[in-house]
């Protein structure tokens, strides 16, 4: 037993008891308690275990800097690991669990690691990588298993997250982060000038350090002042967000905040568990306070050792005394107030001031309150492995102290100075400077960022100075936003009675003490020196080698001590050594909150074609292709994909079929210079394409590789309808827009994406003409009226007897006689039904992507699998198409020596030597019996061809057909251990002369 609830005091609601569990044991606390204060009130001392040694850890602070009391909250799928007990408020039914210990934190068998401490010193991981005895990775493999078992903190749930989260966006004139004296005074000054203000507070209660103060004089920093200030802010429309942590500061005044919405509610209803708030603020005031830092002494990680101000916070805010007999070790004035608070609560208190000359008035006030003040004395070593029983103290000579007395005590408070919380401004790459007087890193210049620091975050450590600092920051913000000149307020000063004396570590002359600077990760002062001895001279390297500051608290308490010791070891100064870089988030953020609603099917759009319902009525199966849900196959009587696709492809080749081609990109290219524009962007000639004709076009990138292909239909002299591949609809549009807006602004061309405006069906097969003849009252489909590549606009008569507008072109992807018919999206369902009736009457079927893909492989037509950004026009067998006369995009760089090499992998067809053998796309092609190195190329597309009665493939082979036609090579699939002998053939497997589509 150590801590206990005081009979009165504290900002808790003693009329509302709250029941929660700690490792399945029921405990009671009060509304307003944190997990830490409620456990302390019940005398619990061991709350956590450290990362490596499993040493007992108690409550070390009262805030986000906590490095000892780290627990898991809630159960099962809602379990949250690595929560600071000092931050979590207790709510009815809360389950709190000790972590990184077995069977429990109080009785942890893993603590035997402590006995092997010398093996776990700094750089342990790196050393085992190389092998302690030179045996290399074998040892690492063995140790890794041990480390994985022994090290680590809480375990996350492996179940799906049952909660939902949301992302909301906000704007304001000024965002004030932190609701202590500085934040409140800034917000009040801003609100009085009509500014739109958001005040964010990470705690569940507004007030910051005021909540830890003992003043009830009605002046600033009293409860009464706090209440009236908050009331005034609310009345002026200031948005006050508690339980909301600003976790990251980004460019141009954008701040990311996390609001914990429901964890404190007994009945959360439909509310999200957490809310990620993205605030765009015109100005930002960081009143984020300061964190007290300890100094290191022997066994200073024992339960019962805590920050001095935190000990006072437990008394003032939670009505809990951390112990009966306290020793407070300080090197500055602020620790006196903490000692006074403890003494006034009836704690027998001794104050050790490292300074030989103590502040006279503070010391006499303290002595009057019954505190035993000892000048020039420091703590040397804590006694008691499961909790402090006593403290050896000694006289400090500025570096060392020899234990000369033992004080019996059950808690030790330490104050080694204050570290301003400037993480947020650090996120913007602003470097703080070392302030010798305050012994702290201070940000003096925020550069171009619309950010000011106020209060103890700016090094103004007294309440009076913080209040003035807040007003000053507010005045500056108002000036920046309104241009109104106001009298410049003076920079406030911290008026400490006696200067702080830097103390980092207490050493004994003849004995090595185990002094911790990162209690969570078990980093000691000796580890820092070891890192330096082993050559880690940069702070960033030291951090990674020792893991100092890399635990869940990110070194908020111990970092500065580590830097100071590093500087000392290197024989340099703290400013020369510098500080490590802080990056977001300031405190841990749930991944779920960052994702918000964008999960499952909501993380990206789902696109359906306008004929979705018609497909569904036919029992169509869909496949994801980018954002699209494309019709894949239409199974009949329990057919699987392979059988359905085969039947569909056969029907198309024998009769006719229709397929949804709505996903093609469609762009209107219009204007007097449209022809010239197309002639520049396509590698083949477009200047002489007549009205009423379409042409296949191949588009290159600037670097000469193939970008995209598609057909472009000339509708009038100045209007072209361009189609692109499904995948490149967006990129092609962007490419054309880029050219017209930045490279050739003089061209009189307008482009419009009409991909969603038009839907389309391709009707293909020997009976395609029979299907379409008569379907359109004003379009003739005969060879004479519409030759291959002909384009016509007209109408299609649908079931209702009405005529819908369509445009159609005689194009073929399948190799059959075929037409693409396009209609405005809303007419597409009617078009689908009208054409399906006619297709069925001709013995045909609707077909999907799978059958279409099979037929295009049979024809050697390329898709995205071949146009993978690494192929030239010649590589895919279309080198002859490119114009030799005109300049066009990509032509110059396509002529680079490496792009015209004769042994480039070029498109070929591949047939298995043993007919019917299945092999896979992605397989690597090698000469027979030479499967080493990078091979000749790869298999790009594969299909089970009904026409050839075998699996067939397209692929790329170095040297192509001229070198390999008719020869056998090997398709190797090392992932599945498959090897297939294949013969290189022409990629035009089926109807190589194209008689069917021209017929």
């Amino acid at each position, binding site marked *: 037993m150590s801590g206990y609830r005081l009979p009165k005091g504290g900002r808790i609601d003693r009329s509302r008891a709250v029941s929660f569990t700690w490792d399945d044991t029921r405990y009671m606390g009060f509304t307003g308690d944190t997990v830490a204060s409620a456990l302390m009130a019940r005398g619990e001392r061991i709350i956590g275990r450290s990362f490596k040694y499993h040493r007992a850890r108690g409550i070390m602070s009262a805030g986000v800097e906590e490095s000892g009391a780290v627990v898991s909250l809630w159960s099962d799928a809602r379990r949250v690991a690595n929560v600071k007990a000092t931050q979590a408020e207790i709510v009815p039914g809360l389950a709190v669990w000790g972590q990184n210990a077995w069977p429990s934190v109080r009785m942890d068998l893993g603590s035997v690691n402590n006995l092997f401490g010398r093996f776990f010193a700094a750089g342990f991981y790196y050393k085992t990588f190389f092998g302690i005895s030179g045996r290399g990775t074998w040892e690492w493999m063995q140790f890794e298993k041990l480390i994985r078992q022994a090290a680590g903190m809480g375990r996350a749930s492996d179940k799906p997250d049952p909660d939902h989260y949301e992302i909301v966006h906000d704007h304001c004139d000024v965002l004030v982060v932190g609701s202590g004296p500085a934040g409140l005074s800034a917000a009040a000054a801003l609100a009085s000038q009509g500014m739109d203000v958001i005040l964010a507070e990470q705690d569940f209660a507004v007030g910051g350090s005021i909540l830890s103060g003992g003043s009830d004089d009605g002046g600033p920093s009293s409860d009464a002042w706090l209440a009236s200030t908050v009331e005034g802010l609310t009345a002026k429309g200031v948005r006050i967000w508690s339980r909301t942590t600003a976790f990251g500061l980004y460019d*141009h*005044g954008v701040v990311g905040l996390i609001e914990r919405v429901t964890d404190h509610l007994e009945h959360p209803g439909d509310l999200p568990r957490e809310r990620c708030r993205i605030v*765009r603020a015109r100005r930002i005031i960081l009143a984020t306070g300061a964190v007290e830092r300890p100094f290191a002494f022997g066994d200073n990680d024992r339960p019962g050792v805590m920050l001095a101000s935190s000990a006072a916070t437990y008394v003032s805010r939670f009505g809990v005394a951390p112990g009966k007999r306290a020793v407070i070790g300080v090197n500055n004035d602020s620790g006196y107030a903490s000692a006074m608070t403890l003494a006034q609560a009836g704690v027998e208190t001794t104050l050790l001031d490292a300074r030989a000359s103590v502040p006279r008035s503070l010391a006499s006030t303290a002595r009057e309150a019954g505190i035993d003040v000892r000048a020039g004395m420091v703590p040397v070593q804590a006694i008691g492995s499961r909790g402090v029983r006593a403290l050896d103290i000694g006289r400090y000579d500025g570096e060392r102290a020899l234990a000369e007395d033992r004080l019996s005590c059950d808690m030790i408070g330490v104050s080694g100075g204050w570290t301003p919380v400037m993480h947020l401004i650090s996120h913007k790459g602003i470097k703080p400077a070392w302030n010798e007087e305050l012994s702290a890193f201070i940000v003096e210049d925020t550069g171009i960022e619309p950010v000011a620091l106020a209060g103890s975050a700016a090094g103004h450590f007294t309440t009076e100075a913080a209040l003035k600092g807040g007003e000053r920051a507010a005045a500056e913000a108002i000036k920046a936003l309104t241009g109104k000149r106001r009298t410049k307020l003076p920079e406030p000063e911290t008026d400490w009675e006696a200067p702080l004396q830097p103390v980092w570590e207490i050493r004994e002359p003849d004995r090595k003490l185990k002094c911790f600077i990162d209690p969570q990760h078990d980093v000691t002062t000796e580890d820092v020196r070891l890192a330096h001895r082993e050559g880690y001279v940069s702070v960033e390297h030291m951090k990674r080698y020792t893991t100092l500051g890399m635990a869940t608290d990110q070194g908020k308490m111990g970092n500065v001590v580590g830097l100071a010791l590093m500087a000392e070891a290197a024989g340099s100064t703290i400013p020369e050594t510098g500080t490590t870089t802080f990056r977001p988030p300031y405190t841990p953020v749930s991944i779920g909150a960052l994702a918000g609603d964008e999960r499952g099917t909501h993380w990206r759009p789902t696109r359906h074609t306008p004929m979705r319902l018609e497909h569904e009525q036919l029992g169509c199966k869909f496949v994801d292709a980018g954002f699209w849900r494309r019709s894949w196959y239409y199974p009949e009587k329990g057919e699987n994909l392979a059988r359905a696709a085969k039947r569909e492809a056969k029907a198309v080749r024998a009769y006719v079929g229709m397929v949804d081609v709505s996903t093609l990109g469609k762009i209107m290219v219009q204007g007097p210079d449209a022809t010239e524009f197309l002639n520049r962007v396509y590698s083949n000639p477009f200047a002489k394409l007549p009205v009423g004709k379409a042409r296949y076009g191949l588009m290159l990138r600037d*670097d000469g590789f193939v970008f995209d292909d598609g057909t472009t239909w000339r509708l009038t002299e100045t209007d072209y309808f361009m189609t692109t591949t499904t995948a490149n609809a967006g990129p092609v549009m962007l490419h054309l*827009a*880029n050219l017209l807006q*930045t490279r050739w602004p003089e061209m009189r061309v307008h482009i419009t994406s009409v991909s969603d405006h038009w839907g389309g069906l391709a009707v293909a097969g020997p009976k395609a003409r029979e299907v379409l003849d008569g379907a359109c009252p004003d379009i003739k489909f005969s060879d004479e009226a519409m030759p291959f590549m002909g384009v016509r606009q007209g109408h299609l008569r649908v079931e209702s007897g009405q005529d819908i507008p369509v445009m159609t072109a005689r194009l073929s992807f399948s190799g059959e006689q075929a037409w693409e018919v396009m209609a405005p999206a809303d007419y597409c369902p009617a078009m689908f039904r009208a054409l399906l009736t006619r297709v069925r009457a001709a013995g045909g079927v609707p077909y999907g992507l799978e059958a279409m893909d099979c037929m295009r492989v049979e024809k050697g037509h390329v898709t995205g699998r071949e146009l993978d950004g690494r192929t030239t026009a010649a590589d895919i067998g279309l080198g002859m198409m490119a114009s030799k006369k005109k*300049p066009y995009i990509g032509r*110059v760089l396509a002529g680079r020596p490496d792009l015209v090499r004769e042994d480039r992998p070029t498109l070929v067809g591949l047939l298995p030597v043993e007919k019917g053998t299945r092999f896979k796309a992605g397989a690597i092609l090698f000469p027979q019996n030479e499967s080493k190195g990078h091979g000749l190329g790869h298999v790009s597309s594969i299909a089970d061809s009904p026409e050839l009665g075998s699996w067939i493939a397209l692929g790329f082979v170095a040297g192509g057909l001229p070198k390999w036609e008719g020869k056998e090579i090997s398709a190797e699939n090392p992932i599945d251990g498959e090897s297939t002998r294949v013969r290189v053939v022409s990629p035009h497997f089926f109807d190589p002369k194209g008689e069917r589509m021209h017929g």
Partner: protein
Amino acid sequence: MIRIDCPFCGLRDHTEFSYEGDATIEYPALDASEDAWFDAVFLRENPRGWHREYWRHGFGCGLFLEVERHMVTHEIRSVKIAHPGMAKVVAEADK
């Protein structure tokens, strides 16, 4: 998250825009030399300081904007519509 003040739409998050490359590049004529094209396509400065770049307001007006941005601080000094004709139309409409 940087924010860009689109001359047509106003101040918006960069998530509405797409980065479209270096605006200091002068693309050569289509039939220029291989060297000229090589320089334009592959060689880029990486200045520690001010730089001009294109951003397209894809979730807005669709215009390509020429943005002057500081590569260290991300400060944006100017934003203008890349196409001179469109820039003129928008400027006149704003009068």
